[in-house]
């Protein structure tokens, strides 16, 4: 007997929650406890009084499991609202990465040239290294990191995805 895998599709959710101790563990733990995937999870306070946080979760699941994920999240007491941006329609997603590259000579010149193409900013420079800041969709950052690995990639820090719907309405 072999374990079966179900086909899944990627969704981006935003979850508005009370900013109370343990909320992140509650959300993340729900995903592990019920066997859901998390590709990315970001959280930050979004109100002046720091009472409310917005969590962006990228997950992949079948349509049936997606419905369950949303219902299970909404069941948590500190959760105010869950929105499936992918299902809702057009939205923008951005991620920020800090990319450290070390090298000299041609590699250094090529790294700087590629950074320009990808509109990455130089945050730190030494004689033999750069730290680039690059923002964009997940694919763009993946590609940038892949290119940097050819010219002396040392390490990468990524924020994970934040997302918001297009148009004038709040999601």
């Amino acid at each position: 007997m072999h374990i079966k895998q179900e086909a899944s599709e990627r969704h981006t959710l935003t979850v508005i929650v009370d900013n109370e101790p343990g909320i992140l563990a509650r959300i993340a733990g729900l995903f592990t406890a019920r066997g859901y995937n998390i590709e990315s999870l970001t959280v930050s306070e979004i109100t002046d009084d720091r009472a409310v946080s917005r969590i962006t979760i990228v997950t992949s699941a079948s349509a049936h499991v997606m419905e369950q994920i949303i219902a299970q999240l909404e069941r948590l007491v500190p959760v105010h609202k869950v929105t499936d941006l992918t299902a809702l329609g057009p939205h923008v997603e951005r991620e920020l990465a800090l990319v450290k590259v070390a090298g000299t000579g041609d590699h250094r010149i090529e790294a700087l040239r590629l950074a320009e193409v990808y509109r990455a900013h130089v945050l730190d420079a030494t004689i033999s290294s750069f730290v680039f800041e690059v923002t964009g969709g997940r694919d763009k950052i993946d590609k940038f990191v892949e290119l940097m690995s050819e010219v002396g990639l040392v390490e990468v820090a990524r924020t994970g995805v934040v997302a918001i719907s297009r148009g004038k309405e709040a999601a």
Partner: protein
Amino acid sequence: MAEKSGADILIETLCDLGVEVVFGYPGGAVLPIYDALFKQDRIKHILVRHEQAATHAAEGYARSTGKPGVVLVTSGPGATNAVTGITDALMDSIPMVVITGQVPTALIGTDAFQEADTVGITRHCSKHNYLVKDPAQLADAVHEAFHIATAGRPGPVVIDIPKDVQVATAPSRKPGRNTQRYAPQTKADAAAIEAAVDMLAAAERPILYTGGGIINSGPEATRLLRELAELTGAPVTSTLMGLGALPASSDQWLGMLGMHGTYEANLAMNRADLIIALGSRFDDRVTGRLDAFSPNSRKVHVDIDRSSINKNVRVDLPIIADVGSALADMVAAWKARKHPKPDLSEWWRRIEGWRARRCLDFADRADEIMPQRAIRALYEATKHKAPIITTEVGQHQMWAAQHFGFEAPNKWLTSGGLGTMGYGLPAAIGAQLGNPDALVIDIAGEASIQMNIQELATATQYRLPVKIFILNNEYMGMVRQWQELTYQSRYSESYSDALPDFVKLGEAYGWKGILIERPDQLDAGIADMLAYDGPVIVDCRVAKLANCFPMIPSGAAHTEMILEGNEVSGEMDDEAKALV
């Protein structure tokens, strides 16, 4: 404003919330609360002998009275011992508030003596939990905890209180009930109710499939279910948790459905053209193989928990509501739309055909007591007393569900979702405290009863006349039954060896013990048990190798029901072995 200690604020808040009984066990991290308890006389504390039993006793109290059960335990092992009962209450939607002591705030995270991460451990087995770090926030937290435990789909809420917070003082004030942030939908969408009623009126083969939600919703939901059944003439089946909502004596009652349900209930579900699920959740023990579950029916699902809808079975019409409120709306809509009572005679004719199989019949014996016979004898001897029945988990539980008839709600207390052996005795203790004049009987197995046997002392201490009726077959019978079906009768560790003499054990705790060994002793033994004014443990020796049928093997369809033991045996394939 006068200041009070956290412990005093806690006790005062519990009193304000109408708490009468607390099940608990003291320890270092709750000493301030126990001292506050000592100085008052409004709340009765029941000292259990193990914290797990405190949680099951609270469940039994809650399930039999409709009021939330309250538990008080210490930090570390006190809290971890309570985890099984907390999980049990979550699975069976039992309102419960568990107060745990914690090491002082400054010691949290230092691996202090009797420290455990209670909030972390209980995060996913409670409906909600709190770590209260300021006595000024305690009253609000306790009020919200009771609201969350009882509103919407009920469940357990844990409040972890560090010892310094119990001692420190804060201004004592009465909070308003904080209902703002947790307000689950309880009123159904009117259009959905009308659609459901019209579907019910048009159906040729409808069935009402009810669950524990009806019991949780309260006696009015039970009354309304009976009215809806009367108006529509539809057959009714129920999950394990919902027994008693429709009287077992009703002509419309098909018996329990699912893995050990009746032939007629499961066949009716399979052949129905409309299923109305009322406060039930399409659990795997109910549906059997999902792709073969009731293939030709439309499905209406009334549930207070949105996450229960479309979880296992896709439904055509979801109704998110308290089932009692939805039933009231359905009954009103049925009358307002002047639906006549449908002619279901053809459907009932088919059901009678399935009933004629008499699937619960068993081959009785003169030389030994069949377990089914014992349950029926107990039922016949006690039915006029409307007893409260608790169970442990295993074959005896299923036989009780099949052969004991329940006429009213809140009389049947069993661990359904989690399947916790050791539930029955403490639950009986809790039920007896909530219903001092009721006859409370724990129908047990010889293996399960040993999982919380220490609670014999609790019943003795509080002079609770609970009865334990052990169906003793010297096996963990359900394990042995599965080993027969799945593993060619290789009885790996399922024999109950080194059993105690239950009669002497009971006597050692101050109980009366009765031994029943032969069929001709059964009725007299039960009569002795009922006649005794005090706790009684009955060791009823039953046929050792009897199995519980009907049975739908794990992963099989409702139509693949095993009615007799000789229909199967041998070894199952790996796919079947992997199923629970």
